[in-house]
């Protein structure tokens, strides 16, 4: 797989170090000082590169094909998992997975879109783009969680809801609205973790939660940078500029109060060290689940509603001004 452009100097340096180490081992010569020095330089370079990533570079990181998927997080974060299928209405959407999982002994309901890890899998999973039956499955599992008072954890990583003829026929818009409404009033704790892409209404349909966490190299926006650029300038290749304008990074969203916390990734992105990323997500979930479990469910719902009620910026106009 192709490395990102901006990573190339670092990857070259890392390769050089690796070669040098191998040469050491073969030749029995001691280059340990040189190696240490090179490693210090690599570490500095790594920090420099990843500290100054542009928003669009983060968008590309979020789309990295080796980035952990929902099923990866389920495997890494939970002790047991029973996947549950179907919307009991029309079908079972492979683009959304869900079920009951054990989080440190506690049953939780987990739901999230599922991208494939290769082309074959991506076709089977429809690139993680859900159809209405996927959202209806999610809704069904969330209602089940409510009945049994189980917390709900959603993982979000999709560029949007599937734009297709059948998806429209079966009520893509309507079901997104239903998901949003139902999650808003769900009488059980909800944590949403935006792990990769958070694209538009399709992401929000899984994103109405008591705590919204976001990985460092994830994005969340009303529109993808490509489509934004294509609307603004009729040129989707200017996506990097659009990404700047859209303020779609965790840092911006935290500042706006849209999300509650940012989950740091290993330098170079979640795919560089999946296990570390899994541990990070687990630690954040542990912390926030503990907080939510202490709160009465009536209060959770009230605060959840209040949280969204506040979002928006506008000016009240005194009638004299008009």
């Amino acid at each position, binding site marked *: 797989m192709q490395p990102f452009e901006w990573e190339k100097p670092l990857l070259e340096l890392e390769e050089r170090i690796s070669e040098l180490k191998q040469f050491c081992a073969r030749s029995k010569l001691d280059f340990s000082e040189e190696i240490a020095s090179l490693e210090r330089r690599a570490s500095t370079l790594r920090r420099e590169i990843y500290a100054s990533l542009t928003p669009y570079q983060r968008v590309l990181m979020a789309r990295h094909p080796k980035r952990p998927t929902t099923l990866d997080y389920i495997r890494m974060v939970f002790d047991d998992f029973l996947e549950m299928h179907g919307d009991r209405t029309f079908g079972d959407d492979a683009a959304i997975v869900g079920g009951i999982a054990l989080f440190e002994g506690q049953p939780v309901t987990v739901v999230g879109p599922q991208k494939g890890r290769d082309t074959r899998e991506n076709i089977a999973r429809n690139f993680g783009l859900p159809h209405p039956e996927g959202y209806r499955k999610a809704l069904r599992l969330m209602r089940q969680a409510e009945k049994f008072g189980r917390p709900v954890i959603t993982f979000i990583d999709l560029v949007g809801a599937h734009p297709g003829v059948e998806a429209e026929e079966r009520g893509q*818009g309507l079901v997104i*609205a239903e998901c949003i409404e139902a999650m808003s009033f769900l009488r059980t704790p909800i944590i949403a973790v935006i792990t990769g892409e958070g694209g*538009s209404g399709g992401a*929000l349909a899984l994103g109405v939660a008591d705590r919204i966490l976001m990985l460092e190299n994830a994005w969340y926006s009303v529109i993808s940078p490509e489509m934004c650029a294509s609307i603004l300038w009729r040129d989707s290749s200017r996506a990097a500029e659009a990404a700047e304008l*859209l303020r779609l990074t965790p840092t911006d969203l935290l500042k706006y109060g849209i999300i509650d916390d940012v989950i740091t990734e290993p330098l170079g992105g979640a795919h560089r060290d999946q296990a570390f990323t899994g541990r990070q997500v687990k630690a954040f979930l542990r912390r926030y689940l503990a907080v939510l479990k202490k709160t009465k469910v009536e209060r959770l719902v009230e605060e959840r509603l209040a949280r969204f009620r506040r979002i928006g910026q506008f*000016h009240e106009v005194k009638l004299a001004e008009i």
Partner: protein
Amino acid sequence: MPAHETDGLWVRCDGCGKLVFKRELEKTSFLCPACGHHFRMGAPQRLALLADEGSFTPFPPLVSANPLGFPGYEERIRQAQEQTGLDDAALVGRAAIGGSSCILAIIDFSFMGGSMGSVVGEQLVRAFEKAAAERLPVVAVSGGGGGARMQEGIFSLMQMAKTAQAVGRHSREGLLFVSILTHPTMGGVYASFASLGDIILAEPGALIGFAGPRIVEEATRQKLPEGFQTAEYALEHGMIDAIVPRPQVAQCVGRLLLWHR
């Protein structure tokens, strides 16, 4: 299908292709005199058609901020305000329809495509809150082309949650929400409050859906079915309660309000 203006005075009908005199349209509630095609109409005209005369009291106006500091957004708003005479894309207030009080919200496509930024979202939320407080039904007429107001980025997206929640709180009080979908109701407007009506009516031929037809066509590389995403298509696929031609909308909504008093 938006009506393409040919010059200032005439407009070509998307229904029959004939040229229609604009002044004529104002007299016919923007129905094509030749084929009955429903042209888009502005919020003030819609208000006059729907609400009992003199019954409307608008909510205090709100004006857009620029939360992301999006370049050119203030200017864009100012232009839209000048062109439409509206503060933003939602006209909201208290009204009576067929003698029954309600809160009425009308989305005007001509204001930035009827997109939902912070102002539209807040006005809609206030509509449902006011209605809940006074135990009134809400009637909303939606015509939001793409739904999202890109220039407000994530703030625009969040209005979907905010408005859907306002519908939910109003609904849990046992109150009625009649959602009227007019051409075009798409994207975030459709995927939030507009599709949460207890009763969903649509005007003939109105485009209704989530992803726009061009996006669907590009994504799927297949020809779209005949009548894709029209009101008639939505009815056939179970998504709306009824199609009501424009001249009957006020009477139909009036009956519904009366039956839910």
